[in-house]
C-alpha cells in the first residue's frame, strides 16, 4: 500500500522524525503586547508541549502539499521568561481598559451598519439600561438564531458532488446557483478562499485542489470562520483517504465519483459539522482537558507511557471530547487539528464501544501522505473513557491490543482507577467555583500548550439554542480578534442579555461572558481574579507535565 506511513518507498524520515520536516511555520511577529511571555501563562506545559505549535486559522490554511510542518514547540519558545507577576497583568488591564471604550464604540458602529445593510443578522447592541424593556430586540435576536443554518457541499473540481450536508433534495435546489458561481470561481488560483454575500447569506468557497468546498451560511460567523470549518471538512476527507491517494485518484480520472470511496463515512463528516456548532475546541484550535488531580493524571500518563510498543506514536486517553492524557513518541508532536479529527471519529460511531476497533487513519497535519493505524476501544462498558493507540504498523494489531491490556493492568496496580472513575462523574466544573458573582462563563486558552479550559455552560444558557447563541457570541468575538486585516487585542461587547470581553495576547486568549448588569470595571477586575484562579487550578485544568516514550 503506497500510502502506508512506514512502507512508502523513498519516503525519507528527516531527523528521525515521522513528521515531514520543517517548513512554513515561521512565527509571525506578534505586536509587542506586554504581559505573560508565551510559555509562562497559566496552563503552559512545564516540560514542553504535547502539540505542534498552532496558530489555528493560519495553520489550517497552509497548503497540504505533503510538506506541512511539525516543529517542536520548544524551538519556538525561546528564552523562558520570568513568571509574570500579577502587577504585570494589572498593567495590561489598565491598558485594556483604555482601549475598551474605543472598541465598544467601534463594535457598535459596525454592528449597526451591518444590520442596516442586512448583511447578517446581528444582536441588538442597545445600551444596557434598555435591557428590561426590550421585547422587540429579544425577537430580533431569537429570529436570527432560529435561522441559524448552514449548508455544506463538497465537489470535485470537475463539478461532481462529493458530499452534501442536507442530503440531495435540499442540495439540488441550491446547487444550481452554487454551480453558476463556481464557474467564475474555478478560474481563480488554487487554494483560494472566496466569498459572496447575498440576501442574508454568505457563500464561502474554499478550493483545495482537487476539491472545492462550499458553505452557504446564514450565521453570524465571518467568512474566515466558515472557511475554517470548511477546511476542517477537507482535513476530515484527507484523514479517510490521505492527500496522496486523493490526488492520485483525480490525476488518474478527473471526473471520478469520490462518493464511492467515501460511502459510509458521510456520518463522520455530519458529526464534525455538528460538533463544530457546539464545541468551542474547533473555534479555539485547542484541546480541552478533563479536570483531574495532577497526581491522578500523572499516574495515568505514566501507565500509558509504560504500556508502549515500538510501532506506537501516540497513546491518547479521552473522555467525551476532553483529553485525559496524551503520551507521544519522543520528538513527535500531534497537531490539535489531528486530535480534533480523532475526537470526531470516535464520537461519530457508537460501534467503538464494542470490541476493539482497528482502522487506518491519516493525520493530515502530521503527515498527509500516509496512514496510521488506530486501535480504538473503551476501557469499560459503563465508563466514558476511550483509549486510542496510534501505530505506524497495520500488522501490529495484537501488539497494540496487548498495550491496552498492560495499560489497564498498570492503572489497576497504581490504584488510580477509582480516582479516575470519580473524576469522570463530574467531567465539567461549575463557574461558581471561581467565586465571581457576575461571571457566567469563560474560555481560556494557553497558546503554548494548545490547551484550553472552560466551565460547564449553565443557566441562563440552558436550551440548545441558547448554548449555540453563546458559542455564536464567542465566535463573533473570536473572528473580530483574529480578523486578518484588522485584528483586535481587546474587545468589550455589550449586548442586551450579556456582556462579553475578549483579551488576546501572544501567550493566551481569554473570553469571558458576564451579566448584562455588570460594569466594564467589574469585568476587568473579574478577569484579574479569574486569571489568578486559573493559575491556582492550572495543574488540575491542564496537562503541565506531558510525557513521552
Amino acid at each position, binding site marked *: 500500500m503506497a500510502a502506508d506511513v512506514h512502507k512508502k518507498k523513498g519516503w525519507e524520515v528527516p531527523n528521525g522524525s515521522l513528521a515531514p520536516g520543517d517548513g512554513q511555520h515561521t512565527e509571525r511577529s506578534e505586536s509587542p503586547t506586554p504581559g505573560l511571555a508565551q510559555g509562562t501563562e497559566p496552563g503552559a506545559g512545564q516540560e514542553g508541549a504535547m502539540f505542534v505549535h498552532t496558530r489555528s486559522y493560519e495553520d489550517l490554511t497552509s497548503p497540504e502539499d505533503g510538506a506541512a510542518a511539525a516543529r517542536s514547540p520548544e524551538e519556538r519558545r525561546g528564552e523562558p521568561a520570568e513568571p509574570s507577576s500579577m502587577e504585570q497583568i494589572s498593567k495590561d488591564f489598565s491598558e485594556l481598559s483604555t482601549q475598551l471604550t474605543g472598541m465598544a464604540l467601534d463594535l457598535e458602529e459596525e454592528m449597526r451598519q451591518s444590520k442596516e445593510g442586512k448583511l447578517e443578522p446581528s444582536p441588538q447592541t442597545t445600551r444596557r439600561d434598555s435591557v428590561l424593556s426590550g421585547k422587540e430586540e429579544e425577537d430580533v435576536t431569537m429570529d436570527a438564531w432560529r435561522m441559524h443554518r448552514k449548508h455544506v457541499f463538497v465537489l470535485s473540481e470537475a463539478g461532481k458532488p462529493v458530499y452534501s450536508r442536507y442530503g440531495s433534495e435540499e442540495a439540488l435546489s441550491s446547487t444550481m446557483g452554487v454551480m453558476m458561481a463556481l464557474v467564475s470561481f474555478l478560474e481563480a488560483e488554487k487554494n483560494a478562499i472566496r466569498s459572496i454575500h447575498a440576501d442574508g447569506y454568505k457563500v464561502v468557497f474554499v478550493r483545495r485542489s482537487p476539491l472545492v468546498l462550499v458553505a452557504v451560511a446564514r450565521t453570524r460567523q465571518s467568512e474566515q470562520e466558515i472557511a475554517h470549518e470548511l477546511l476542517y471538512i477537507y482535513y476530515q476527507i484527507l484523514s479517510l483517504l490521505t492527500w496522496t491517494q486523493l490526488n492520485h485518484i483525480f490525476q488518474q480520472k478527473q471526473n471520478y465519483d469520490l462518493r464511492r470511496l467515501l460511502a459510509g463515512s458521510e456520518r463522520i463528516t455530519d458529526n464534525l459539522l455538528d460538533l463544530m456548532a457546539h464545541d468551542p475546541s474547533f473555534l479555539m484550535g485547542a484541546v480541552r482537558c478533563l479536570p483531574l488531580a495532577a497526581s491522578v493524571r500523572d499516574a495515568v500518563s505514566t501507565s500509558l507511557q509504560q504500556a508502549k510498543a515500538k510501532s506506537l506514536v501516540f497513546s491518547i486517553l479521552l473522555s467525551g471530547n476532553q483529553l485525559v492524557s496524551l503520551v507521544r513518541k519522543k520528538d513527535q508532536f500531534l497537531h490539535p487539528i489531528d486530535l480534533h479529527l480523532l475526537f470526531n471519529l470516535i464520537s461519530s*460511531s457508537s460501534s467503538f464501544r*464494542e470490541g*476493539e476497533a482497528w482502522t487506518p487513519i491519516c493525520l493530515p497535519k502530521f503527515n498527509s501522505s500516509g496512514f496510521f493505524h488506530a486501535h480504538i476501544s473503551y476501557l469499560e462498558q459503563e465508563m466514558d473513557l476511550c483509549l486510542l493507540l496510534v501505530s505506524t504498523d497495520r500488522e501490529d494489531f495484537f501488539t497494540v491490543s496487548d498495550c491496552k491490556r498492560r495499560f489497564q493492568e498498570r492503572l489497576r496496580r497504581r490504584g488510580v482507577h477509582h480516582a479516575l472513575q470519580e473524576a469522570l462523574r463530574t467531567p465539567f466544573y461549575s463557574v461558581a467555583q471561581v467565586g465571581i458573582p457576575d461571571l457566567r462563563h469563560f474560555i481560556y486558552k494557553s497558546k503554548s500548550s494548545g490547551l484550553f479550559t472552560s466551565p460547564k455552560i449553565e443557566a441562563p444558557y440552558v436550551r440548545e439554542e441558547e448554548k449555540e447563541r453563546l458559542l455564536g457570541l464567542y465566535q463573533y468575538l473570536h473572528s473580530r480578534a483574529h480578523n486578518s486585516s484588522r485584528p483586535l487585542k481587546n474587545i468589550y461587547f455589550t449586548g442586551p442579555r450579556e456582556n462579553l470581553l475578549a483579551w488576546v495576547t501572544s501567550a493566551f486568549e481569554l473570553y469571558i461572558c458576564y451579566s448584562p448588569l455588570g460594569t466594564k470595571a467589574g469585568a476587568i477586575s473579574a478577569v484579574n481574579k479569574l486569571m489568578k484562579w486559573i493559575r491556582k487550578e492550572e495543574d488540575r485544568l491542564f496537562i503541565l507535565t506531558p510525557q513521552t516514550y
Partner: protein
Amino acid sequence: MGRDLGRHESFNESSLLQSAKPQLPMGMAQKATPGTSLEGIRPTYLYKVVLLGSTSVGKSSLAYRYVKNDFKESLPTVGCSFFTQTLNLEAGTVKFEIWDTAGQEKYHSVCHLYYRGAHAALLVYDITNKETLNRAKLWLRDLEKEFLPDEIVIALVGNKTDLAADREVATEEGEEFARTKGLLFMETSAKSNHHVNDIFMAIVSN
C-alpha cells in the same frame, strides 16, 4: 500446515499438549491452533472468523448478538472491529476471534489482511436486498483466490429473516448457490436472535 500463526506462537511454546491429538469436533484439529489451559485437561483452541459482506447487511449486528446476546439499532463500523468470545465445548475451550469489517471500498486493502490465518468466513447478505447476495458472490471470489478449498470453512449467511415481508432472495436461492459452491448455509436474524449461535457452532464443528 504452513499457516501463519502470528502471535499465537506463544500458545505453542508453552503447550505441552501440542503433539497430543485432542478429541475434537470433526475437522477442527487441523483448523485451529491448540493452546494450553492451566488445568492441562481442556485445551484452548483459537478460532479466527471473518465477517464479510456489503455494508448494512448486519455483520456487526450478528457479531454483537453472538458476543453480547443483544441487538442495537446502530453500530456503524469504522475500519475493522475485533471481538472475542469463548465457547466451552466438551473437547475443550474454543476462543473465537471475530473480525468484523466495514466492507467499504476504501478499507479493502486493509481488510484483505484480516483474511490471513482465518479458519472460517461468514459471507453475509441481506435477504431483503438481492444486490447484497451478488456482492457476497464477489467476496467469495476474493476468498477463493486467497485460500485453498480445504483451508477455510465458508458459510453463506442470509440475514434479517425477521423482515420476511420484504424478502427479495428466496431461501432456496441462497441454499442452491451455497450447495454449488460447497458452502455452509443458514438464514439468520440478528434482531430476533434466530440461528445466530447455530451458525457459529456450525462453523467450528464443520
